[in-house]
């Protein structure tokens, strides 16, 4: 198996990084390209950039940013936020993105996954799934967890795999933002139900949490934002800790 991946996630609004703070020696933490280059130098295996802008004008700023990221960054990067058509995906591919991530739009229109994957290959499509447990059932949510759907997590995961998703990024809305760790049993079941890589997102408060989801939870990669942005740890020291616990990471 390939090494377990550590993927810092950067939220971008109007071309600027949101939440990036306290980076010694970095002139402009608000510049997503600079911050991404810093994470890359520290040993990040991939990067995810999420556009949290609202308007159309800001979207074109994001496309320009993707072009600048591609010029500078020499590891794979995924972009997402507001992708709702094949054209949106094509625009980001042309700007240099290696992968795109779709979430709410895929739930509303599952054919979107099929269309993007058949045109650009499944390696290009990461489907993000947000779910929360309601009466003992993991139900898929959209719009940042604010809307509950009728879909159930595991059957939706299998469907997106069949439709051509190359990877699944799963966030438990019950754990996201709590920094109390991931639901490892749910991850383990998810990983046994699909044969594509699963990226764990949302909930990491410590290296221990990440180690658990990569071992007990069987996840292939962990996405993290706040533990890096708030300077709790660096990508490099996190990966060293994981390696000390016997987890294969790229050092």
């Amino acid at each position: 198996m390939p090494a377990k991946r550590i993927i810092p996630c950067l939220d971008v609004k109007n071309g600027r990084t949101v939440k990036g703070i306290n980076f010694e020696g970095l002139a402009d933490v608000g510049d997503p390209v600079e911050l991404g280059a810093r994470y890359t130098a520290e040993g990040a295996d991939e990067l995810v950039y999420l556009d949290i802008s609202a308007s159309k004008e800001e979207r074109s700023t994001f496309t320009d940013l993707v072009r600048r990221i591609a010029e500078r960054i020499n590891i794979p990067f995924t972009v997402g936020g507001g992708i709702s058509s094949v054209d949106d995906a094509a625009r980001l591919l042309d700007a240099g993105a290696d992968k795109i991530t779709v979430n709410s739009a895929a739930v509303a229109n599952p054919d979107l996954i099929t269309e993007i994957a058949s045109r650009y290959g499944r390696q290009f499509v990461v489907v993000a799934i947000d779910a929360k447990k309601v009466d003992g059932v993991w139900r898929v949510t959209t719009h940042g967890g604010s809307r509950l759907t009728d879909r159930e997590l595991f059957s939706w995961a299998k469907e997106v795999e069949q439709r051509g998703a190359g990877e699944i990024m799963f966030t438990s809305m019950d754990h996201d933002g709590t920094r109390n760790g991931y639901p490892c049993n749910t991850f383990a079941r998810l990983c046994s139900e699909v044969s594509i890589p699963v990226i764990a997102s949302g909930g990491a408060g410590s290296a221990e949490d990440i180690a658990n989801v990569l071992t007990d939870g069987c996840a292939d990669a962990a996405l993290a934002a706040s533990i890096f942005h708030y300077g709790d740890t660096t990508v490099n020291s996190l990966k060293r800790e994981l390696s000390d616990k016997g987890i294969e990471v790229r050092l």
Partner: protein
Amino acid sequence: MIAVIDYNMGNICSLGNALQRLGVEWQLTSDHNEIRKASHVILPGVGNAAEAMENLRRLQLPEVIWRLRRPVLGICVGMQVMCRHSEEGDAECMGIFDAKVRRFKEMPGVKVPHMGWSRIANLDSKLFKDIPRGSYVYFVHSYYAPLCPDTIATARHPEMFSAALKYENFYGCQFHPEKSGDVGEKILSNFINL
């Protein structure tokens, strides 16, 4: 001038950016004369091997590539179509490397495509000058070239396969040097300095 062969097989944005970072002059072309004149030739490729071969044949490129005597590098599907045959679409390929490309078998715990960072070992070429054994590079593929006399680097998934191949002036790597961080950039720069 480096020629990157344009045969409509996937996005070459990241390769172009990587060459730009190395400060070399390059052009994307399918023109036979430009390819013959180039100091180095790169055959990129993302997608399906059978379709890649079809596109190459339509542009009458195999005949041009066979006769090149300067360094040629196939990347990913670009490497696979330089082998004898690919199981993907049962494609007769260019037959430069003595290997038949096969699909990985899905097994419990073995995900296909093989995607992510894996180590390369048994490095045996100037292409890997100053690259430590066991360095990680980035792979995305469902098909692979088995070990063969042309193997110059190996990786595992979980069985050993050819991570890179060489025959005379022809090189191929299954991984993406343009996405493999500083290690990948060094490999590209080694190729350019061949």
